């Protein structure tokens, strides 16, 4: 019996080996940091690059480990490595690489160790959310994502605006963690187990614990708490301010990583994997039309407010809210689509493409100017095609992809969502598809404004010699993904449909 326990311990640890590597690097970074900076927090130049190289090496090694690992049957241990966890880990490791490149010159040398350490911790957190098989670990992983985020937002720019943005993000994030925890407590109480697998089966089988009426309340609380992370409408207020206030790399990270965390947590909690028949009772269909209304309102508010914006980052913030709305459409469709594409597959495909688009757009923003005199409003971007033709071209590619125009993967992502929504066969599904189309048309307007500014106007800044090699590399990779996924989407689509 003894070695069975040891075996179980070793087995569950091996599931999360790549994350342990990341967290070990975080420990090393935080251990080494104070020895390399003097009292007043300054250290010799180029230190941030060395930390970044170390981090890249760690991510590479963790990626190699991830590549060796294969999805395994879900046991009842604390962690699991099913298809979704495997896919999300790959996605988050790729995002880490891009974010490290984006963050290359964004942080002063003194604070670079903390910034890179928190970035690695966030990456490990996202992996753990996907890999967790237990309520406790899910909540711990959510915290492991949010607490380093406060640090990461604040470090690049220490002025009042960044300070205010971080405080605002912190207060709302703590609030949302409280909501999620409260929801989890009810789920734990009513269903009687902390293991997600057991919860899924218990709910599907329909035998509920002492106070079944608490389940809808729990589901609503969970959606509210996680809705904050994916900037769904009633909880989206922080996004524009934080995107504008925090450093550009902070905004880049915020535009994608919390969304991955939020959606994966939502999938884990509300829609258990495995096909249990269309009308099995899951937390998702307990909540009735809330997710439907959430998706529709998020889309419309995100798009309509984005039209009014002049600041590029605020506009990208509202566009990320609108994209959260599109992804919520995939989530609302969920698995029960007869004769149609699986909503969760469409959601994951859209998430991957959205990641490439938004990180690419922010990388392009960074490539245009450094933090001191950075481009704020759309007019700053005017005539960019003259001063920086390459950056302008890639930015246009990302914006066209966000718009959902053909030569980019954004089009395929939206097409999948259209298909999933329409083929659900129900009236609500059709209305979702129609709203999706209307929003895509509205969205075209404000993306077009940026492109028009870049190409059709005279250059606002006469000379722009700001070279940012790392961000350019990141931008090029994202552009490769956005174009590549259009011409060869099959491998990703097959990976996703095998996974969820």
């Amino acid at each position, binding site marked *: *019996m*003894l*070695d069975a*326990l*040891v075996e179980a*311990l070793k087995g569950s640890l091996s599931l999360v080996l790549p994350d342990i590597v990341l967290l070990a690097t975080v*420990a090393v970074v*935080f*251990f080494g*940091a*104070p*020895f390399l900076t003097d*009292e007043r927090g300054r250290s010799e130049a180029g230190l941030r690059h060395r930390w970044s190289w170390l981090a890249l090496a760690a991510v590479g090694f963790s990626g190699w480990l991830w590549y060796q690992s294969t999805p395994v049957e879900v046991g009842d241990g604390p962690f699991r490595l099913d298809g979704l966890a495997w896919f999300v880990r790959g996605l988050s490791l790729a995002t880490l690489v891009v974010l490290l490149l984006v963050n290359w010159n964004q942080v002063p040398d003194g604070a670079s160790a903390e910034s890179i350490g928190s970035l690695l911790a966030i990456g490990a957190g996202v992996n753990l959310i996907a890999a967790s098989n237990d309520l406790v670990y899910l909540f711990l992983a959510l915290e492991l994502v949010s607490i380093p985020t406060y640090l990461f937002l604040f470090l690049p720019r220490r002025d009042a605006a960044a300070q205010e943005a971080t405080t605002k993000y912190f207060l709302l994030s703590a609030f949302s963690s409280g909501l999620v925890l409260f929801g989890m407590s009810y789920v734990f109480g009513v269903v009687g187990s902390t293991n997600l697998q057991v919860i899924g089966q218990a709910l599907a089988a329909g035998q509920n614990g002492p106070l079944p009426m608490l389940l809808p309340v729990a589901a609503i609380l969970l959606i509210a708490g996680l809705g904050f992370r994916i900037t769904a409408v009633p909880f989206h207020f922080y996004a524009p301010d934080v995107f504008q206030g925090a450093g550009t790399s902070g905004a880049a990270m915020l535009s994608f990583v919390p969304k991955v965390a939020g959606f994966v947590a939502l999938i884990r909690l509300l829609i258990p994997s495995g096909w249990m028949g269309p009308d099995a009772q899951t937390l998702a269909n307990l909540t009735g039309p809330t997710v439907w209304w959430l998706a529709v309102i998020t889309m419309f508010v995100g798009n309509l407010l984005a039209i009014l914006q002049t600041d590029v980052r605020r506009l990208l913030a509202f566009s990320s809210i609108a994209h959260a709305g599109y992804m919520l459409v995939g989530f609302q469709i969920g698995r029960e689509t007869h004769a149609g594409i699986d909503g969760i597959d469409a959601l994951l495909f859209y998430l991957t493409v959205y990641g490439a688009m938004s990180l690419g757009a922010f990388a392009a923003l960074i490539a245009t100017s450094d933090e001191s005199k950075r481009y704020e409003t759309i007019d700053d971007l005017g005539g960019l095609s003259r001063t920086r033709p390459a950056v302008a071209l890639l930015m246009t590619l990302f914006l066209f992809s966000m718009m959902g125009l053909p030569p980019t993967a954004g089009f395929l992502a939206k097409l999948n969502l259209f298909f999933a929504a329409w083929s659900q066969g129900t009236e609500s599904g059709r209305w979702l598809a129609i709203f999706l189309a209307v929003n895509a048309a509205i969205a075209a307007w404000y993306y077009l404004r940026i492109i028009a500014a870049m190409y059709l106007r005279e250059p606002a800044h006469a000379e722009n010699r700001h070279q940012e090699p790392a961000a350019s590399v990141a931008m090029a990779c994202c552009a490769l993904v956005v174009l590549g996924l259009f011409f060869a989407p099959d491998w990703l689509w097959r990976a996703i449909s095998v996974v969820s």
Partner: protein
Amino acid sequence: MDISVYAILLYAGMVAGFVVVNLALTHLLSPNKRTAVKQMPYESGMDPVGDARQPFDVKFYIVAILFLVFDVELLFLYPWAVSAYIDDASGVPAGLRDTVFGVMLVFMATLAIAYVYAWRKGVFKWR
């Protein structure tokens, strides 16, 4: 509801009552001739210097935060301490004791890293 519930309520009532009654009595019966000397804060006979609300130096604040974090880590040690070395079934099985100890060491190591980080950052430098 049986007697034990009433007992608690009764007890709570008495405590509250005792406090309220004393306050009311002192307030009503005490002679209050407000003179300057009586208004001074009593610092065991010495004359108070400066305002009572000076701002603390920042380092106290940071030390307080660090104390909060490290103190709470103690919480994790309790279950380990209780269950690690007892022999009946409820505790950690004998064979696992050293592995569990190893895990505890890792936990303490992370705390040590945090401590070294804080120390090198000059939190404990008492100017």
